């Protein structure tokens, strides 16, 4: 379990992480979702004690990470796939890190097999592709058989086969009762893997809810109509709980009324419809909308700052 309490990290006056609080529960995959620059990696680095928080705390499995007796067995993390020494083989990389918790070649060879690097385990990691680097990073994260696993953008650079492999792996780890915390800037990826979502933008938590709730909350359908009589239809549809908007002549966007009802009203008045479509906003759009508000907000404060200066 990971507990983040009022975590803040400022670089000068700029907050990279701004008073974040959330808990990552064991037994499920929790997605850490936000656009690039939202503070995901900084938060993860603070959880691992790599960056010092300006204020706030992060607790892993009930205690600060610094106090862990066997850090690699407490939490396995993949932060940057390229953070390896290119002059060393994957096997030696794992052996060196494993030595800190007394893990030896049997475990290392098993993991190389698990992540599909057994054949290249003895060659220099300098020749690895980004995807192979990700696989090595995941092997590193699993070295100590940790209760908690934290991966920063693990599908980056993986081919579709590798992405599917990661999804299965994350599900397995969660099913075994582990805490699995995975970041991504892609909603579509989270939709496939995560059961719970923590959405962040500009260093703040924007949403912390079950994936199912997030989907329910954001999937309010709209109906798109195109009609030569759009103007008349507009007046007929307007009413309490219904919003009608028109971006270009002849087209209407209606929310708050099902498509069938729109069609019936048009038919009763004898209006011609060229198109009547149910539009389900994608989660991607919902996520973009949620985070773009945070981005815009930041943009305006920046302008104020410049004016003040």
């Amino acid at each position, binding site marked *: 379990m990971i507990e983040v309490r009022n975590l803040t990290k400022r670089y000068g006056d700029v907050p990279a992480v701004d008073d974040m609080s959330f808990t990552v529960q064991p037994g499920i995959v929790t997605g850490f979702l936000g656009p690039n620059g939202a503070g995901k990696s900084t938060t993860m680095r603070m959880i691992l004690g790599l960056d010092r928080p300006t204020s706030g705390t992060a607790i892993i499995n009930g205690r600060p990470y610094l106090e862990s007796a*066997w850090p690699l067995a407490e939490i396995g993390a993949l932060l940057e796939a390229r*953070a390896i020494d290119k002059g060393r083989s994957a096997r030696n990389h794992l052996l060196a*890190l494993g*030595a800190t918790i007394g893990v030896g070649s049997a475990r290392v060879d098993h993991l190389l097999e698990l992540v599909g690097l057994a054949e290249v385990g003895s060659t220099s990691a300098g020749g690895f592709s980004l995807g192979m680097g990700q696989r090595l990073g995941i092997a590193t994260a699993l070295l100590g058989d940790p209760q908690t696993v934290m991966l920063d953008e693990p599908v980056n650079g993986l081919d579709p*086969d590798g992405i599917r492999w990661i999804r299965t792996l994350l599900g397995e*780890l969660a099913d075994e009762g582990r805490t699995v915390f995975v970041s991504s800037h892609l909603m579509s990826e989270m939709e496939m893997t995560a059961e719970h979502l923590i959405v962040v933008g500009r260093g703040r938590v924007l949403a912390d809810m079950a994936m199912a709730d997030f989907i329910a909350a954001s999937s309010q359908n709209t109906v798109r109509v195109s009609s030569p009589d759009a103007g008349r239809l507009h007046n007929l549809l307007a009413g309490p709980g219904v919003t009608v908007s028109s971006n270009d002549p002849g087209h209407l966007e209606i929310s708050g009324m099902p498509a069938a009802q729109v069609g019936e009203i048009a038919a009763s008045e004898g209006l011609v419809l060229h198109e009547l479509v149910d539009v389900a906003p994608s989660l991607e759009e919902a996520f973009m909308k949620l985070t773009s508000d945070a981005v815009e907000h930041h943009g305006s404060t920046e302008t104020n700052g410049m004016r003040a200066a």
Partner: protein
Amino acid sequence: MSAETLNPPDIRTSAVAAARTTTPRVIRSEWVKLRTLRSTWLTIGGMLFALTAFGLISALTASGQVDATAGQGRPPGFIGTDPVSTVLAGATFAVLIVAVLGAIIGAREYSTGMIRTTLAAVPKRLPVLWGKLTTFVVLIAPVALVGVLVSFFGGMAILDAGGAATVAWSDDGVAGAVLGMAAYLVGLGVIGLGMGILLRSTAGGIGTVLGAVLFVPTLASALLPDSWDDILKYLPSNAGQSFTSLNPSDTLLSPGVGMAVFAAWVLLTIVGAVVALKHRDA
């Protein structure tokens, strides 16, 4: 699409009993890192070669067995001011190599980003520094020792065969100067390592150590008036010279004080690395 990528992941079957992350385990980890880089062994080989080969060649020229000074009308034995510095002539090059090796070991993980993987595995951080220092010293000290001993005994045999002046191991100050040179090499390597961590840059670490060791003392003694000598003799390289050569001049500290001053420089670098490693964001 290889078969293993499609196998369902199976982590449980090899569940591990993790041991505590103690300083000895971190030292072991650093040892695996050090020995699995080819550059470590190449640099050490280079250092041993420079130390012995240049020492022996210097002895050959000094004893007139290799005529390097033909036509210049100078007598044999011009290279060193004394037989010990003649046979330890290779140290001039070994110093550069060991400082570079130290700086590389200190800074390498910063340039690759590996340091974050390392510090995530050892969040207490300082054991990583102890690990790097221990493995470096344990590896480099025997090499430096073998290098100076081969240079000394081989070089003296060559000087003797050529009829040039020699000194014996048991002569006053000789053993101290030869062993002192080995210690000086190790110490400079440690300064390089500390600088590498402090500056997080291989180039910066190398530049600082070589600058402080080579250029500053030479430049300073050339440019500054003699009245500055009292200060200049406390520089690491001048302090080192006081306990690595046989007939120290008035401008140098006594061997004992020189060694203490040099040790203080080494310690200062380590303290700097400790503070930086402990308090900096990785």
